[in-house]
């Protein structure tokens, strides 16, 4: 299989879906002439023109709302947030409008749209630019929340999200855009279903549930622990809402141990939700309390040595696995 970067995989998904369906358009800050703050939309303006690749003023609430109205009336908008940190000024559009319109209208209107952009900490961008927003949006019925960790998942899940008839919050990894990985050939049109987890590595020693950037810490930890004779089973939910709890529970019943790894803060969120499901549905199978590896419960500091302390690391995954394995 060929290898491409995460950003290229996303770009291919956008290109293919825009070619396939004329109602799909991309709107956001710097998506057109500048070709994207992270170059995801490079080449799109040249191919599709200003009618479908639309630069906006700095007005997230405004263009997110435009997306909702366009989706309600028959288009399939893709709204790019330069980063998800800036989605907070559009919170009302996502939560009060996009997530509610189908229900409020008695099921008569739909809102087929994608909000997408980079999520999570980058490198030393400090308190206001380092949010992992997954806990905020997974709390909202009416939204899908997708968070791909690999180029293949990025492409296949984005294509499915664009075709989905409900609003999707699509959380890309800000530090993953350069990541290379295997992706099927362009003509394969792979659609990865929303709400289906992927078992990225099989093992019987301990289940590690991880998504986004820390998924790669989990995979690295699995390599290291294999040398110690501990075989990790790494499960990437990929979609955080709806959550494929069956896949997680199935794995825990096999390994009898579970560590949940995520970049979002430890208070609540999908991390806590997964622990709740595991204790409820696999209580009798657990040989140890479920552990979590999360960002520290603080605003992100600027200095690199401090940032390294706050974010989940491979070392902390190793510690957690050893703790639940009593080794």
């Amino acid at each position, binding site marked *: 299989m060929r290898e491409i970067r995460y950003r290229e995989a996303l770009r291919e998904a956008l290109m293919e879906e825009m070619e396939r369906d004329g109602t799909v358009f991309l709107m956001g800050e710097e998506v057109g002439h500048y070709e994207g703050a992270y170059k995801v939309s490079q080449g799109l303006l040249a191919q599709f023109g200003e009618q479908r690749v639309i630069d906006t*003023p700095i007005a997230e609430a405004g263009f997110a709302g435009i997306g909702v109205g366009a989706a309600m009336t028959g288009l399939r908008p893709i709204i790019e947030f330069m980063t998800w940190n800036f989605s907070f000024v559009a919170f009302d559009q996502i939560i009060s409008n996009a997530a509610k319109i189908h229900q409020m*209208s008695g099921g008569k209107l739909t809102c087929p749209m994608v909000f997408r952009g980079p999520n999570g900490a980058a490198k030393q961008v400090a308190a206001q630019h380092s949010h992992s927003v997954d806990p905020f949006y997974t709390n909202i019925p009416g939204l899908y929340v997708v968070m791909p960790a690999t180029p293949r998942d990025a492409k296949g899940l984005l294509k499915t999200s664009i075709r989905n008839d409900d609003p999707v919050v699509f959380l890309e990894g800000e530090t993953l855009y350069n990541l290379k990985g295997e992706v099927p050939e362009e003509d394969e049109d792979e659609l990865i279903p929303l709400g289906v987890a992927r078992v990225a590595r099989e093992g019987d020693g301990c289940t590690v549930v991880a998504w986004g950037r820390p998924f790669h810490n989990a995979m690295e930890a699995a390599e290291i622990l294999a040398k110690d004779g501990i075989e990790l089973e790494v499960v990437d939910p990929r979609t955080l809402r709806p959550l494929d709890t069956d896949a997680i529970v199935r794995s825990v019943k096999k390994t009898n141990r579970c560590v949940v790894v995520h970049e979002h803060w430890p208070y609540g969120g999908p991390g806590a939700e997964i622990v709740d499901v595991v204790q409820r549905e696999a209580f009798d199978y657990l040989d140890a309390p479920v552990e979590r590896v999360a960002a520290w419960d603080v605003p992100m500091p600027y200095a690199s040595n401090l940032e390294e302390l706050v974010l989940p690391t491979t070392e902390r995954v190793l510690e957690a696995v050893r703790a639940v394995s009593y080794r």
Partner: protein
Amino acid sequence: MASGRDELLRQYRQMQTIRRFEEEAARGYAQAKIGGFLHLYIGQEAIAVGVNDALEEQDYVFQTYRDHGTAIARGMEPKHAMAELFGKDAGCARGLGGSMHFFDVERNFLGGWAIIGGHIAVAAGAAFKSKYTGDGRVTVCFFGEGSTNIGGFHEGLSLAGLWKLPIVFICENNQYAMGTPMKRTSAISDLTLKAQGYGMVGERFDGHDVQLVRDRVKPAIDRARRGEGPTFIEINTYRFRGHSLSAPAKYRTRQELEERKRLDPCAVTRQQLKDAGMSEDELVKVDAEVDELIDEAVAFADAAEPAKEELVFSTVYATRQHGTPTLRATGYPDGRETGHASDAAKQENA
């Protein structure tokens, strides 16, 4: 001119329908048949009807939570409106929306939105779609003067002006943002000045004469349809009831209210009909017909089936879902289905 009088009579009938609907809604609220908030349109009827008369059927209309009058003017049947207020399945949003979230997709009445300023960019999005597809529709977005101070208003107008979207923004200035008069919320009294900054034509006039409203709004609609961009219109009006029925109107004087009631739009139109030669007897007959229509709406809503439990889950998502609903983890008391597709899928697989 007979045809002109017929037109005015139809307008009066619609306005009176809205008026009587709201009065019966107030009664239903007092009788606890209606819950939540109830924001009445009484005093503003000429705007809903006049604006609608300037629109085509294909055009989109967005309104705030004070939405009953606009929906009825658009053609929603009072019985489906009343059934919504009563929380019934026959309601225009099947009992899921309530007073603040009326929808009538067939008549292009696209809500009923209850966060101040939150629907303005959404309406601009509907207009964006019209520009994108070239479907020739115009969108009208109503809001109150209180909305002109919040960010959603400014971002919505900013983008609509920038992209010359086919939309007309109609500010129903009923003088009070809940209980606060405009002089205490806005640095300027001419609200069209706010739209000037977004490159938009501004208009302002009084809203008690239904045909004047229609005639003053029509050029803006035409301009939008010709692709010449949006217009901001401030219409001076007054609500005769409180902000909502749970908010008593102690912030204004009885004298002010009585003065404004001299320009009661229903009474003004009724007088215009008399001036055009209709007799009091004929008008009483019209009023009685409207009363009957509203009585029927109440009877219909009373007798209608309650909102359906299965809609609680099935309307959250339009798509079938894979994965397991989060709710299962939080416990679901009697083992009912959640309505999520995973349940349906399990049943299919069984």
